[in-house]
């Protein structure tokens, strides 16, 4: 459970930073970036040993 949470957190953080780096800084784009990062983080966590 903790692994899911922490990867979700870092996914969101990473998504936000990447969205900022891609110059997509409107609230909608930042939200989408965070959502994408959340999905990526959860997918990554799914492939890890728990």
């Amino acid at each position, binding site marked *: 459970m*903790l*692994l899911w*949470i*922490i*990867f979700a*957190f*870092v*996914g969101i*953080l*990473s*998504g936000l*930073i*990447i*969205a*900022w*780096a*891609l*110059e*997509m800084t409107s609230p*909608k*784009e*930042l939200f*989408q*970036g965070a*959502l*994408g*990062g959340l*999905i*990526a*983080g959860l*997918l*990554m966590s799914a*492939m*890890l*040993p*728990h």
Partner: protein
Amino acid sequence: MEFLGYITLAIFLGLMLLTLFGYIRTPVQTVLVLSTILCLVVGGLFRFSAYGWNSVALMPNEFLGGIILHPITALLTGLFLAGGLKASGGFEALKAILGYLRRSPIGLVGTLVILINLPVISSLPCGRILAAALLPLLFTFGFEGGLGILTKSQLIVLIGAFTRNSMGSCGPSPIGGVGQIAEGFLGSFFPTASDGILRAPQAFALMLGTAVVALFLKFISQKLYPNDVALREAPAGFATQSGGAEVLIKAPIQGFIALAIFVISLLIAIFQPLGKMPVQSVLVAGALLMIVVCRIRLNDLLEGIILLPVTAMAAGFLAAGALAATGGFVALASILNSLVSIKALGVAGMLAIFVQFQTILPLSCARILTAALVPTLYLFGPAQFNFLSWSQLAIVMAAYIINATTSCGPSPLGGGGMMGEGTMRAETGFIKGAYTFASMAVMAPMAAIFMKFLNLSVFQPSDPGFARNIYMIGAFALVIAGVNVTFIFLGSKVFNPNISRNFVVQLLGFLFSGGFGGGILAFALFEMDATKICQGVLGGVIAAALIGLMVPKTLSKRLTATLSGPTL
């Protein structure tokens, strides 16, 4: 005999450095094999003169004992699966899925974030596989590629960040990843180490590090090297196609089937739901199933083979075996031991430098040096020198491995980063600063913190000393990201057209971040010991200086294939 170890170590390191700096223009694997033969010949002569023929006769066993077959064969079979995936249109299916995602609520940004992190999610044994498949897709987002959705700057960030993630994705891969080399050693103490003790720290660090790379490329690299990327911007009046009529990627049904077979094979290999079975058997079965179901040929499996990581690992193990048989590791450990005796550095400082070793000397595949140097790191634990306990060794291994894994990206010897540079039409060395900075300042310390506060409690649940503390991990992630993002942002504000001044500013940024990272590593190992933290900071600064000085001030204009820009 001790002297022999120093000689063979000098041979090994000397040849590596000469290759790295371009004095030897031969593929590095060839150099490693030559180094192995030379070490064995010298070792044989020494042993014969000191102990006679019987001692020489023991050398082959000692030498071959260094070869670990599992990661090599796992890598091979992983590459077959990837070859099958490519031939059956699996990557086209992946592109089609990404196209659907773009039209979903997560939009372009969310899709790009997932795309950038896709290599680590897919856990292929070599980042070049997915990079080769998807970099052409990324290129299409720009003006030259046809879609014109992203500007030149955005495209640089996208390609650079994706390539960074790719060229680190081999680390946490369960099918022949670099991490498996070190997991074998940790298995001496942690019974379930081979289940993937080093995977989660690497994946975590890579996610954050990729984001920092994106920022670095945006704010620093493009300012340092403003004329070294030959991509063209869309001319004024070009109607961008962000709304609309883009060509939908159609994938054959076999592609989706192949993708499903790939994912299922991977999940079976990782989670072993059908009972314990070698990863290699699962992957070969998956590849053969692809041949039958998706009607591809054996040649298509062969096409998927990327020889570099295979030969790199084999050559690295051979060199490791030769060093082990001749006492080279003991010599290296003694040298590092003498660094420990320098009061200002101590154990923490020495480890802060050693952990960054492969970023200081980046070769075209991490496996080369990892296979050769992880045994030395292992000796720092209870196995020999006893500087570190098993849990501390695991923390250092996590930091070392992620640093090693990401070292192939910035390597000028055909490292994976050159794929990204090639795609974005950048000069060699454009991505070096970004990649080395993220490895040194973000990924290594973050992996150490993750291992300390979460991963060890998963792999050693009986020990109450390991804190399952995600608040600490979250806080450190924010701090590490925040500090480095601040450095990047502030640094970019300070740049001006003076190249030398920019280089000095960048170097200072490296030193600050390196020191910070070294301090965090020391904290992860020794907690609130102020002396050790200061030593870690100093070690980090030294490592950062070595790394920062290797980032090019200007890039070579040799054969710039550009149709724009002032240089033509």
